[in-house]
């Protein structure tokens, strides 16, 4: 990976310090929380489990090999999540009574299976949630006008010239804003999000 990369994985590997941990939590906690809920974990237990999953990620990160394969990290994270969920239900013996044990096991097995529809949903939601958090983390690094122009073009899908007119700024500024913020987001999501990988193909 390139020297100036802002990638979280790089950060975490090089300095498993508090700052990177904060980032990891910030980026992944919401995603994990949503999925815990999908797997019937009560909110009261979710905090602990989120922490467990992220601790496992931080601890075992050295063992994780990216192997250049896009989406590897989210698959690995999913494996940890499945693992923790199984452990949770086993140890607490607190499966919701309304659903059978086997039903939950079956759903966990689905999530475990990389080819399943559930895994596809995981992949999509992973990318979405992670990117949403990266957006939040990136915002303070830009001028409010830059950020707003970027949002209107890149997030809301408006044409740059419409945005420029609307905001009363030059078209140049809008184009710059969109490119600059998108660049940073791509760098930050490198190795985390599938579609951010391999984007240097043209250069």
């Amino acid at each position, binding site marked *: 990976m390139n020297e100036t990369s802002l990638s979280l994985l790089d950060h975490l590997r090089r300095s498993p310090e508090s700052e990177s941990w904060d980032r990891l939590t910030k980026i992944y906690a919401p995603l994990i929380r949503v999925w815990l809920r999908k797997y019937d974990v009560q909110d009261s237990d979710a905090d602990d489990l989120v922490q467990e999953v992220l601790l496992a990620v931080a601890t075992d990160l050295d063992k994780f090999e990216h192997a250049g394969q896009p989406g590897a990290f989210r698959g690995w994270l999913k494996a940890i999540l499945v693992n923790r969920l199984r452990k949770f239900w086993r140890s607490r013996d607190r499966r919701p009574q309304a659903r059978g044990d086997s039903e939950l096991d079956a759903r966990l097995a689905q999530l475990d299976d990389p080819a399943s529809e559930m895994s596809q949903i995981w992949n999509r939601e992973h990318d979405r949630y992670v990117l949403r958090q990266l957006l939040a983390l990136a915002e303070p690094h830009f001028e409010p006008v830059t950020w707003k122009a970027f949002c209107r073009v890149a*997030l809301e*899908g408006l044409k740059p010239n419409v945005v420029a007119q609307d905001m009363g700024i030059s078209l140049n500024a809008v184009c*710059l804003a969109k*490119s600059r913020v998108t660049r940073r*987001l791509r760098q930050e999501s490198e190795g985390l999000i599938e579609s951010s990988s391999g984007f240097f193909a*043209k*250069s």
Partner: protein
Amino acid sequence: MPKPTAHPSREELSAYSLGQLPEERAVAIDTHISQCEPCCETIVELSSEDTFAGLLQEAGRLPTDLTLDSDCLTAKSSLTSEHIPAPLAEHPRYEIVRLIGKGGMGDVYEARHRMMERTVALKVIKQELMRKPEAVDRFHREVKAAAQLAHPNVVTAYDAEQAGDIHFMVMEFVAGVDLSQMVNDRGALPVADACAYICQAAIGLQHAHERGMVHRDIKPHNLMVTSDGTVKILDFGLASLAPKAVADADTVEARGDLTAAGAIMGTPDFISPEQANDARKADIRSDIYSLGATLYFLLAGRPPFAEGSVTQKLKSHAQAEPKPLKSLRDDVPPELVAIVAKMTAKAPEARFQTPAAVAEALESLSQNLQSPPKKPARRHVPSWKSHIRPRKVVATLMLVLGVIAAVVAYKFYFSATDGFSIVSGGAGSGGDGWYVSAGSTYLKQDEPGVLFGMCENPEGERSFSYVVLFRHEVEELTGVSSASNTGLQFDGETASIRDGLTIDGKDIELDLEMQMDRHDITSTELVINGKPTDASQGRLFLVDLTSDGVTWNQVNVKFPQNLPAPEEVVGDTKLASKVARQITEQVANDNDQVRKFLAGVTVETSDLALTSEDLLVGEWVWIGPPPGSDRIRLTLAPNGTFDLVQWSTGQEIRMQATGTYVTNFSVSPAQLDLDATITTPAPDREKTAKQKFELIVELLDVDTLRMSSLESEWRPKTFDKDSWIWHRQENRT
């Protein structure tokens, strides 16, 4: 400034716009773009897209704050990869804010009216439903009819609109959770909640019924609950589009789309037998059936007939009996079982004939349910009906059991609320006395108020406290006010008591004096004579009874031993001895009562979690008697520093965040069921490791001015950079 370089190629501009270029090259083009108009126009014309750009748009539609409001995640993040349709995105009147939901009819967006700056919801009707001009006409007619409805329990429809070939309905924007979501999240609801929600829905339905309208698709998903507990019926007028639309969909494909996805009617979990048989036969009694099935769902956590195919379900609605509620939970009163049965009777004639009759039955049930013996009924008027009114205050003496968490020395908490505030205050101790005072207390004109103070001095084994209070009407300030209630009288501009008091064999002297002019209480002092210890502390409450509720402010003081002697307080000894006697007499009695009052309140908390920069005290659940006129206050005290965070009643939620604490706070209307999240930004790790956190939940019963509280304390058990494991101590008082 460097000279503009040669124009980049179209490919390169596209890659640049998408942020695909390596940084070095991108920076070079930055310089070019900042000066080159034609290249910018090329970028506009290219409108490049790639996977990442698509993903950005999806991510942008997620709620911004994913960490705090967990409801957002499920209620509002139903996302798709679909973009906002262009005609809608460019609509002259409405600016789309975000996608907030997807339904059988189509997507729902939050939008702002550009001119009126009003937030609205736009429900886009699927194009399959609008293929025929008759369908479009009907849609406009139905929405116009629905727009006639104006009721707090009905989501207001504003208009039917068109943008290009997209038809949409403009309606009131309601922030909340639908009942289906609520049950999915929390499981079956408490009996009182379920009754309150259905009762409100029935009241809304009655309004529509009186205007000749039938909903035809009442189900949990169509009943929204707002943050203040108001239920609002969604989608009036739309359900009638559905069955006809199926018939209108003249291509096999369109018809297949509609039915295969169960798109329009969803699974028929709540449909009445006669409506399933022939949709044209649906009348208000069909809505009552659906509402009954919804009530069953809220109580059971599942629809009456959850198993089987669509056909089997329809058959069950017509012939079978659902699993008895009694077999699913043991706290459903027989009267309620009977109400559900009557609402869901197979024959329309056997049901309640109007929604008003349903509401009436539920209301009288609720009142019986919620009135424990010997309590005045008015306190238990279901909260969807009552607004808190100032009421008579009964003098009481309250024992606060257990130890109140440490308060900070010499530090006062002042908080301004509307019309009532402690402007300054002081405290001192020395020799044999200690005191708390609140000076220059501002009272808004014409608003009745109460002041009471409470001090405690945990000498020996047991702490004690007392409350002195009186009520006054500003108009009567110079006269005798609620003296009969409290034993306190105004003597010109001074109210005071002074007497001895014996608690647990210890002699205590009490002084209270208030100086006031017409609208200001200029000074208030409460003096305790007795040797203070390090643990001695005082609280002074100022309680404001106004037309919209009760608020209170308080001063907490801890008394170290080396403070100067208290100022001399002049009091009316005769009056004071009278009060003191009353107080003494009540100590013994109230002790038991306070315990009893607390017996019904349990608090469960989850452990404290430290997430990144935030400290989250997640998910408090306080289950207790219906809040009625109670006030709840939440206090977070890091390292013993009190800070008022928030208080609320069951009806209104107000935010009063001070310092660095933010609370998410919600209370369900019919039962006290409190979920709270407290966030403190960026605690310093090292410092946090040494901190302890106390969370105090207080409940003030406005009728009796009794307060009960629960305190939890967390200390980090282990604390290193990788893990935060917190240890909780709980004191229930």
